[in-house]
């Protein structure tokens, strides 16, 4: 047998091997895609109910007596703020269903409306002072049980005793529906308000802003520090120096430390020693900075290493100083790699809850944070808190919060990709 024959005899086998190898690759890619699509589809589908909200149309009579207001022509802002609004919604419902007299049923009728309806009515009056003493046709937020029922999340065919919406409530909803007095609208609340214990009033804005401030602090601190550290270690630090080796080993190890350890460190140092306010995005950002530093340092060093030595040498040969070589040539060329590393670090930080537990950011914060010093929570914590809440409406809200988190991440990535494209150079 000559060589050609030997090669030919094995050729089919080698081709088959290659085909199999390709197939394995395609198979694993499609499997991961399948998982991804399944996950996204599941979360997306579950989040849909959260984006609409049930409203009931009522003729609200803003009479001074139920609002506990003195008989005057005009009222100051404070008087209107502290007036009583709790009776207005229920009075309108009692009028609509005058046949309901039994105490328990009356309570059920009251609960058709959200407990937050009174604050909406208050806001409406504060905006239009002339509502006082008149009757207005308004759409009022429905309670979470009614909302779940209208969305079809509560089955009307199961026995009444096992259902949170009773038969008489089902009847009222049917009557309202027949009169077109109940409708589902886009849930604007979700994007404009902070957390609430009532699913129909809960919004993501507080957590979104909390995440934004936390990420801002993290980025502003970790990016410059990490890049400077990496430049020093890569370009200036003496080689084969015992101290530098120790530092390098430590940075590599830090990248693998469980994140909760950084939380404990943050509690001990930032809060207990420096007295940074607990639960604030500032302390969250400081802790997450510790966590992202090693990631960015390692990837920045890799990016700096990948800049061809010829560029450095050319610049040095025409008389550039070391500083000029770095800032004018090496750093801009390494920028795409640095940005990729930073975005990986930031994405990790965005999804982190464990270290925040120690510094008090796993908390119920209803007010929307206005600065990096206000108490705040972040998106993954909001997901955690909502997923652990008993009310049915929070299941959809949990998925909607995950969707928001993914969109936030998407925009962060988008910015990094745009910047990367801007800096990218080919040679």
């Amino acid at each position, binding site marked *: 047998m000559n060589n050609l024959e030997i090669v030919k005899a094995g050729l089919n086998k080698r081709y088959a091997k290659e085909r199999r190898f390709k197939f394995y690759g395609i198979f694993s890619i499609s499997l991961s895609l399948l998982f991804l699509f399944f996950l996204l589809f599941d979360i997306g589908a579950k989040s849909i109910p959260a984006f609409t909200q049930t409203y009931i149309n009522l003729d609200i009579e803003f009479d001074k007596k139920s609002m506990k207001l003195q008989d005057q022509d005009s009222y100051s802002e404070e008087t209107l*703020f502290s007036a009583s609004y709790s009776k207005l919604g229920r009075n309108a419902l009692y009028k609509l269903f005058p046949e309901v007299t039994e105490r328990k049923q009356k309570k059920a009728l009251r*609960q058709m409306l959200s*407990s*937050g309806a009174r*604050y909406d009515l208050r806001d409406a009056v504060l905006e239009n002072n002339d509502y006082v003493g008149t009757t207005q046709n308004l759409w009022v937020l429905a309670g979470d049980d009614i909302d779940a029922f209208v969305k079809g999340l*509560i*089955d009307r065919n*199961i026995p009444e*005793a*096992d*259902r*949170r919406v009773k038969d008489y409530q089902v009847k009222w909803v049917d009557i309202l529906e027949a009169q077109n007095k109940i409708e589902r609208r886009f849930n604007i609340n979700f994007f404009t308000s902070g957390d*609430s*214990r*009532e699913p129909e009033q809960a919004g993501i804005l507080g957590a979104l802003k909390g995440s934004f401030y936390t990420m801002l*602090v993290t980025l*502003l*601190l970790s*990016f*410059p*520090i990490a890049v400077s550290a990496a430049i020093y270690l890569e370009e200036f630090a003496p080689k084969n120096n015992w101290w530098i080796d120790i530092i390098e080993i430590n940075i590599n190890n830090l990248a693998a430390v469980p994140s909760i350890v950084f939380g404990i460190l943050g509690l001990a140092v*930032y*809060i207990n020693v*420096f*007295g*940074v*306010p*607990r*639960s604030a995005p*500032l302390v969250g950002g*400081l802790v997450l900075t510790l966590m992202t530093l090693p990631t960015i340092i390692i990837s920045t060093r890799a990016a700096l290493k990948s800049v061809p030595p010829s560029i450095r040498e050319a610049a040095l040969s025409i008389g550039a100083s070391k500083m000029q070589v770095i800032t004018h040539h090496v750093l801009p060329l390494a920028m795409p790699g640095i940005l990729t590393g930073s975005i990986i670090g930031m994405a990790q930080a965005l999804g982190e809850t464990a270290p925040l537990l120690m510094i*008090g950011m*796993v*908390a*119920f*914060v*209803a*007010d929307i944070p206005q600065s*990096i*010093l206000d*108490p705040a929570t972040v998106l993954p914590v909001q997901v955690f*808190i909502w*997923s*652990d*809440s*008993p*009310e*049915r409406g929070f*299941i959809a809200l949990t998925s909607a919060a995950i969707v928001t988190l993914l969109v936030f991440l998407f925009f962060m990535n988008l910015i990094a990709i745009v910047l990367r494209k801007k800096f990218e150079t080919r040679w």
Partner: protein
Amino acid sequence: MKKSLIIASTIAALTITSSAQAARDHIDVVGSSTVFPFSTVVAETYGKNTGKPTPKIESTGTGGGMKLFCKGEGIDTPDITNASRRIKSSEFELCMKNGVTDITEVLVGFDGIAFANAINGPSFNFSLKDVYLGLAAKIPAEAYQNGTEGDMIDNPFTHWNQINANLPAVKIKVLGPPPTSGTRDALQELAVEGGCKNYPAMKAMKSSDKSQYKKLCRGIREDGAYVQMGENDNLIISKLTKDPNALGVFGFSFLDQNGDKVKGSAINNSAISFESIANGDYPVSRPLYFYVKNAHRGVIDGLDGFIAEFVDEDTFGEEGYLTDKGLIPSPENIRSGFAEDALGAVKLAL
């Protein structure tokens, strides 16, 4: 690049200066995850009614909350801690040692621990002894097929009807909380230990060898019959709907919200309900408290107002809005006593 460095250093400088005068304009609450759902509703209502900053509620667990609360009296410590049990004497001493001498105790109400399974599954009526024999790691030998009295054996039961012929013939599978949870403490101390006490030998052991008694009477089996779930009770409920024979252990408020999917088991012939927990017929329930640092009253704006909102009849009374969230109110005379204590800042003495 230069710009971001400047911004970064400004922030760093800000950090250090802000620490000096970090006056707090919101109320700071920490503590039990069981009280968390109730505390947050009150906080939200208070914030919306008054227009003041909504109190911040952290869910740290009862023990973690006590540690933070008892750390000292400065405004960087919490004003209130929630607890799903009474303050321990060791915690009280820690408070005293750190200068937190004036605290007020308020009983919020009660929480029942439900043993529930899917609505289409068999119905259970346990005695506490059944629960003990089903869940304990080691049981007295005499409980199983005429074993020798006095010996302890590894729990051999696999089906509920082996323990008690009146129970359904289904496999023992209980989904419950992990050891970090207050619900798990209640399961161990109230249900499992409650059943354990039925054996005179064990009762005798309590006075002779307390640590051994605790180990035997509270130890939960680890052979797969008790499945430890995360802290997420919604997850337990969704697992229960898929396996009608499995039982889940969680707080009453979750049962109350999910009555269309799961049903609670009766304990000692008493079905779990609002009324049976309130009047004490249902044996597995625990008190919920909060503790106020009186030195912070008048210092933290709105603290008195928040407490007043919490102990209002419309909040924690029979018809209060906390009952809509699954809180079981305490009897009226006890309730009004605690409300007076809370408003009058009565000092707790153990």
